[in-house]
């Protein structure tokens, strides 16, 4: 399968803990976007990197940081986890950074904070 890969698929952490989510984009895609989905519905834009440069930031908490590496994979480092961080985290990749570029979504990581 040559789709977007996310790991882990499900992770449980205690409040105040830390976690790292990984996203491997489709080969050739250099644009990676992170979204948070809560209550199974609402999708919030968190942050977007293109060619390893942060291009746009949305609802990303200051406790979280995101980096895109030379091979374009992306990691979200989450610290001081709060109960409200429990959600699905999706990453999406696209060929280019631009309004019309189709974003391909990964299967998501379910984060549960206890």
């Amino acid at each position: 399968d040559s789709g977007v890969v996310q790991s882990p698929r499900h992770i449980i952490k205690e409040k105040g803990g830390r976690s790292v989510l990984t996203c491997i984009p489709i080969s050739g895609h250099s644009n990676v976007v992170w979204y948070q989905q809560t209550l199974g519905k609402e999708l919030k834009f968190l942050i977007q990197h293109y060619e390893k440069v942060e291009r746009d930031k949305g609802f990303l908490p200051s406790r979280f940081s995101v980096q895109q590496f030379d091979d374009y994979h992306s990691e979200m480092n989450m610290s001081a986890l709060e109960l409200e961080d429990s959600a699905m985290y999706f990453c999406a990749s696209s060929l280019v950074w631009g309004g019309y570029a189709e974003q391909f979504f990964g299967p998501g990581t379910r984060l549960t904070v206890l």
Partner: protein
Amino acid sequence: AQSVTQPDARVTVSEGASLQLRCKYSYSGTPYLFWYVQYPRQGLQLLLKYYSGDPVVQGVNGFEAEFSKSNSSFHLRKASVHWSDSAVYFCALSSSGSWQLIFGSGTQLTVMP
């Protein structure tokens, strides 16, 4: 500010019936508009997209959407739904002002056999 509104949180239709899912957007310029579908426990998949040209755009699996600048709308339609169309449908917008995708709150579609 840009925004997307999907006024119907849940829609239930019978298999074989026609479907319209509503989407209204707020943006002063010309937006890029998308419809995505999310099946249970999966990521989102693109159904169709629109930027310019013919206001009726065809997508996958028999879906189409019609753009209306005067009504600021981008409604999704299907002539005959199948039980496998049951999913959550998201309308989204982006623009040259900000390339981030702004999603509506989604519409849960249930197709009754």
